[in-house]
């Protein structure tokens, strides 16, 4: 029971079926507990349901059956406003693909999760600039995201996901469009986020070369979890203390 306090995200018997006529299920009775401070990789071939699972625990997609809990709260019983606040403040999300507003420059794109809530222009831009500096992107702040390389774009997406400093980070194939070297660079940044800022990380990938980064690797196939592998050496390094 002690451990329950540390579960930040939990999927309980989550089933997703896209069409009632078809037999195929995107997810079948998936249960997954994510503890605070963990680095989890959802791994599997494309079409195995790992991205669907991520979208469901982020609240973008509703499960056909089952429940998702964010801390103790049922994600799909939240009001629209609460869910918006989860997306704004509680969970950061980095998409695989280009996810920017083309009319806004890099700086303002990073500010997006701070827009429309009455936050002053200057203070949020200052914060965005800090994040860009940390990721060595400050010289691109006035450029438009579509003018940047794939790796730079992913770093901008990373900066944006950090602007409200959420404790949980989701990544959907963050290295999917990147070459090996840039991919490694981005992976190291994610690890740094996990280790130094103690953020919970859930990452979806089909690339086996990054599995060593995770505390836990969840292997998925045909909408089910088939195997779970703990990386104990890493657990020891960064997992949260269990007492208290």
């Amino acid at each position: 029971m002690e451990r329950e306090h540390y579960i930040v995200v939990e999927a309980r018997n989550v089933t997703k079926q896209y069409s009632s006529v078809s037999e195929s299920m995107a997810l079948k009775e998936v249960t997954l507990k994510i503890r605070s401070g963990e680095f989890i990789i959802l791994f599997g071939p494309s079409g195995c349901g790992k991205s669907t699972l991520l979208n469901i625990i982020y609240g973008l997609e509703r499960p056909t059956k089952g429940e998702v809990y964010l801390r103790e709260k049922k994600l799909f019983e939240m009001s629209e406003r609460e869910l918006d606040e989860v997306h704004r403040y509680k969970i950061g999300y980095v998409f695989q693909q280009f996810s920017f507003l083309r009319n806004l420059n890099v700086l303002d794109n990073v500010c997006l999760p701070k827009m429309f809530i009455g936050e002053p222009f200057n203070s949020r831009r200052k914060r965005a600039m800090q994040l860009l500096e940390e990721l060595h992107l400050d010289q691109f702040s006035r450029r438009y995201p579509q003018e940047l390389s794939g790796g730079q774009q992913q770093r901008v997406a990373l900066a944006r996901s950090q602007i409200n400093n959420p404790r949980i980070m989701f990544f959907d194939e963050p290295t999917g469009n990147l070459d090996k070297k840039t991919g490694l660079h981005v992976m190291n940044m994610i690890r740094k986020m996990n280790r130094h800022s103690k953020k919970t990380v859930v990452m979806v990938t089909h690339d086996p070369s990054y599995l060593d980064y995770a505390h836990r690797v969840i292997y998925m196939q045909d909408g089910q979890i088939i195997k779970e592998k703990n990386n104990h050496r890493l657990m020891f390094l960064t997992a949260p203390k269990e007492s208290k």
Partner: protein
Amino acid sequence: MIAGLIDYLFLVIKQFSARKMRTFLTMLAIGVGVGSMFLLVSFVLGLQDLVLHRIAPVETLSTADISPGNLSYINDSSFEQVAKMPLVNAAVPIIYLSGQASDDGGKAFADISVNATTPDYIKYDGIAVKEGRNFQQGQGECLITRAAIQLFSEPEMLGKYLNIRELIPANSNIANTSIPRVDGEVKVVGVLDNDEVPAVYIDIEKVKNVAPELNLSGIKISISDVSQINNLKEDIGEIGFEADAVYDMVEETSKLFNYIQAGFSLLGVIGLFVATIGMFNTMTISLLERTRDIGYMRAFGVSKQSVRSIFLTESALIGMGGGFLGIVIGLIVSIIINSSFRFLALKVGSEGFDLFIFKWWIILATLIFSILIGLITGIYPAKRASKISPLESIRYE
């Protein structure tokens, strides 16, 4: 809404600058529609002003001119009869005479119309006293028209004395062919705004003293209730006179203006309607183009209300821009037409007038009206935008 207003504006302006040409053309379409409405309103105001204040000043609207019919004449007793009629506020007698006038030194001699009446006549007739003042009774004063001044050598007549010889005709009812004369000096105290008829207006008493039996040429009456004008006309007709009311003419003219106004309104409404369809189309395209953007915004916690507000801000701004352009177009067109009319009027030597009249409230109303049109046009696209599901739009990009 208020908290994020700056951000909505910011985002919409970014959107506009990314689509400058389209935004401008959409605003221009609204502007042409709004501009034609604007022109219509100022045109109708201009016409009203022209009729009510230039052609017929307010005082004259409630007046009528009574003239003797073919077989009758107006004597003092029939004057009293008219003056006592229930709808008649005031009655002013007038006698039209012809005469000769010479200026101080007797240098210039001119044939001139002599209108013998009371000072009230000037008020009810609506002729403006351009210089000086109205004449007073029993003071030996007179008014002179600008046209009359041109007959004399001196351009400045105010304060000068005129020697006038009125020719009193033989009364048609008195078998007397002699033509008595009234001679005497009168002082010019005012100049009337009339360039066509050389005339002087003198005190009727002066004529009455010489020819007390002289019939009146007409009566000008002021009416207490113009809407009853037709009843009054009947009463006057019964005692054998004819009455012409300025109101009749204005009424006829207003009817014509109503048709013009209706025609223009229809054109304006059609124009605005087409422009609104165009704007609706633009908003829909803009929505489709930004489905993906909206999806990501929603995924990052931007609320449905914010998405709706972004689109409403956009449509309101397009409306406002359109209204602004419309006002500019309207002002430019009406200024051009006004000045060409003035130019033409000057060429033919008459006083110009404004065909279009601007009032600050029209400009304000136009602006508010176009913002409202923008907002209304934006409601549906905004609603659709807010319903975009983040996942769908991201997945199917």
